[in-house]
């Protein structure tokens, strides 16, 4: 009696094996932590000027574990800051400052946005907090390369 696998040609088996290997590598890329060096935690203080519809500076860099204080100064109307991923929020009245303190315990790139309706481009008033190396981006690029390889491999003649 022939087992189902025995009726599959060696080429197809090789192709399937290749795809399984690529899938395992893709899962490993997603799941395994990257062996990247990390600096000792430090206190980091930022002063952000918020005006319609931008933050200055717009991109903040910290290391994982840093104790971060973001002081936001609204320059024209009420603005604020909502930090994606951390789900923290602060608002500031015009001409006044408000502060947000937290420990940057998650690495990656996180958007922060104005949580107060401040004008037409309000939904797009966005800045970025980058905590340590952006492992998701590197993993994403590796996954994209593997996906392209898998696409080529799956149709190999």
């Amino acid at each position, binding site marked *: 009696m022939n087992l189902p696998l025995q009726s599959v040609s060696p080429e197809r088996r090789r192709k399937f094996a290749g795809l399984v290997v690529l899938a395992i590598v893709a899962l490993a890329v997603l799941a395994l932590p990257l062996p990247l060096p990390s600096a000792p935690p430090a206190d980091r203080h930022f002063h952000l000027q918020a005006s319609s519809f931008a933050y200055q500076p*717009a991109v903040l860099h910290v290391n994982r574990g840093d104790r971060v204080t973001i002081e936001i100064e609204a320059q024209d109307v009420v603005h604020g800051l909502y930090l994606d991923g951390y789900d923290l929020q602060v608002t500031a009245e015009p001409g006044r400052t408000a502060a947000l303190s937290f420990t940057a315990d998650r690495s990656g790139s996180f958007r922060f946005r104005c949580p107060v309706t401040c004008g037409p481009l309000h939904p797009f008033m966005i800045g970025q907090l980058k905590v340590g190396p952006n492992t998701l981006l590197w993993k994403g690029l590796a996954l994209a390369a593997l996906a392209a390889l898998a696409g080529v491999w799956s149709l190999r003649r």
Partner: protein
Amino acid sequence: MTKLDLLRFPLIKTLLRSRWPQFLVRLLALAGFVLAVLAGLLGTPVGSRSFAIVFVWILCWALLMLAAVPLFGRGWCSVCPIPMPGEWAQQGALLGPLQTMTARWRLGRPWPRRLRGIWMQNAAFVLVALFSARVLTTPLVSALVLGAFLLVALVTSLIFERRAFCRYLCPVGGFIGLYSQLAPLELRVRNTAVCASHREKTCYNGSLEGPYAGYGCPWGAFPGGLVRNTSCGLCMECLRTCPHDNIALNLRLPGADLEQRRGRGLDEAYKGLIMLGSALAYSAVMLGPWGALKAAAFAVGSLPWLGYALGFLTLVLGVLPGLFLLAAAAGQRLAGRPLDRRSLKQAFAQNAVALVPLGLAAWAAFSLAFAASSLTYIPVALSDPFGWGWDLFGGAGVGWTPLMSGAVPPLQVIVLAGGILWAARSAVDVQGGRAALPVIGFCLLAGAGLLWLLVG
């Protein structure tokens, strides 16, 4: 390849054969559309509080790019309210059967041959995209654009036969058609021989009397000749006019249309590139941290805006097509194929198949971020569509909170990786072997750019 004809199920067939369910959904959509226009004209100028912005550019857009197009293809077009007034004026009826084949209010001219294809839709999309920072955020401008859609559709229906607006002008319909090729749903005929021997071709010409009375295909497509989803609006009129029960609505493997080589032209290739370029540009403008870029895109008519417009046009009409042409030419060279003008043109058009899954993945990834951060505007706008202090459904007080803010970036990575995989498969399928590598490289480059913009 196995397909499942959904019209074998009596309930589905009855629901789709009757004009009433579709009419009611379209009527509801038309009410929403008119309310959006009115809210934009009369209501609050605050975009995130206006029904005009929230209903059309957040709710409908998220539904369209994340569910409707990937799952139902042109199913969206089948319930779109925009052509309704024009259709009524053109046909003298919406629920049929047709009263007369020669309605008085229309000229019924054929669409000019030289304007066929989707070039006009490409131009319309680019035009709207140039002003999008303003259109997507300013209720009044949004209402004027939506009203213009309605007006142009009406005028087009009065001058030209069938749904010329949907087929040749609608900027949304253009990309829905392109991406509908990926949907796991298709309308085809069961037996082409039956269509060939059917002299009256009622599916195309319409029929005045009897149980199969109805309009000829509003999209000007002959169902017996359909091999791709691009030109079928899933309006189901052919199901109602076919006396031979020969129409099938198949569940199929997603993306089956990509295997078809027929009918692929430069207009469709450019559509793919324009959509990919727009996803890159929108991700930078709307989700990036560059305030000056946002301000330039918003300040229509100013010098910074002219710079932005020039940059956008250069990207979608120059840089991306140029790079893609280089990739297609390199593929031709690797395959030992000729590099003359005609061969290159053909390679450019055929290789653009890879842009279809990549483009939809790009828009889905962009829309995920856009929708997740804006969904909580919906209950507010539904309860207080004009921003006049109403609270119709008790949602006016809902505060803004981004949803799934931690989950969106990994989801975007997975969606984009899936798009690149599918694009690579499509490229290999078209070119075969090593010859596909340059186009795959192009897709990887575009995918890497999107990853950097969305999760970088």
